[in-house]
């Protein structure tokens, strides 16, 4: 998988992306989706509705919020507001991946379709592995992973919809913990630039802290505020580094 080996055709890169389904992050996500199916069943969604929701939204936090607001009897406008607030984070996530994924010739409609398959797991997959793929095959490689993962996740909802409730609850609790510890390790391991590590620490500290202060906008505030502070700290660091190099000359 070196960037020089572009003698392989597009289809083979699609299959390479598909193979990502057998990776640790994909398996962890699929187990959390098992948890969502149980939640959907308990909240009164039919199997068809749960399956359709999984494919149409493809973002677990938004799905959990929509099921929760629907179950509480909120009207469609209130549901829209709650879901859309939780999904604002998609914009910087997608925007940070697109420049690495496209070439000058990649059509915008293709990127718009592919963006639907970007959620936290595939975002981590993209920032970790895209750099190992020749640029002209990156979109098709991501499609191989993203589309396959979404379809498999949707299938998992269909299959596990009424099976999970038979598991002992502590199993679901332990599986729940897999997602955050996997993100901790993989995002830190994939960070090439110091700005990402500073932002990592800011997010970890500000997320839970702001949840106590502004429960509705905590993630958004932690992201915008923590990210901006991380960017400024890193910018000062880079300028000092440049100035230091200048002095020595």
């Amino acid at each position, binding site marked *: 998988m070196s960037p020089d080996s572009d003698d392989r055709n597009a289809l083979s890169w699609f299959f390479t992306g598909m193979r990502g389904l057998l990776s640790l992050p994909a398996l962890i996500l699929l187990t959390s989706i098992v948890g969502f199916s149980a939640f959907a069943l308990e909240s009164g969604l039919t199997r068809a509705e749960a399956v359709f929701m999984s494919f149409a939204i493809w973002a677990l936090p938004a799905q959990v919020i929509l099921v929760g607001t629907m179950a509480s009897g909120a009207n469609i406008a209130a549901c829209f507001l709650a879901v859309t607030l939780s999904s604002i984070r998609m914009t910087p*996530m997608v925007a940070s991946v697109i420049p690495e994924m496209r070439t000058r010739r990649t059509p915008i409609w293709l990127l718009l379709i592919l963006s639907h398959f970007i959620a936290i797991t595939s975002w981590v997959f993209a920032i970790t592995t895209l750099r190992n793929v020749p640029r002209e095959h990156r979109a098709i490689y991501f499609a191989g992973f993203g589309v396959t993962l979404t379809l498999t996740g949707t299938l998992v909802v269909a299959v596990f919809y009424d099976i999970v409730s038979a598991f002992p609850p502590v199993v679901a609790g*332990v599986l729940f913990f897999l997602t955050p*510890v996997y993100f901790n390790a993989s995002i830190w391991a994939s960070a090439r630039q110091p700005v990402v590590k500073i932002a990592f620490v800011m997010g970890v500290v500000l997320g839970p802290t702001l949840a106590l202060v502004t429960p509705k906008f905590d993630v958004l505030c932690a992201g915008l505020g923590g990210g901006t502070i991380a960017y400024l700290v890193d910018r000062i660091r880079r300028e000092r580094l440049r100035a230091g190099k200048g002095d020595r000359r």
Partner: protein
Amino acid sequence: MIAEYWTFIVIVIAGFLATDIWRWLGVFTGNRLDEDSEALYWVRAVATALVMAVTAKLIVFPNGTLAGSPLWLRLGAAGIGFAVFLATGRKVWIGVAVPMALLVAGLWWGGF
């Protein structure tokens, strides 16, 4: 007729559209960023802080069964696990296996 499909309509409008408008906005924004631009540095920082805020909240304020476990156990398992991960050459499987083992041991010891 409408009542039959109402839930699906809610999912399309309050789920699909409410989420994908932000994805589409991300495509239009990202499409105008150069790979090594200052703006992309900032966008990367914001995206990372956002994802980590969600992640840290899952540990501090979990849903379901884990909500009944003590906070010190979850923080300790995640924190010690992360320290071991850093000390042993940053292998992702260690960063996952150590906190999971600590959590399971703690839950078992605590009688869950």
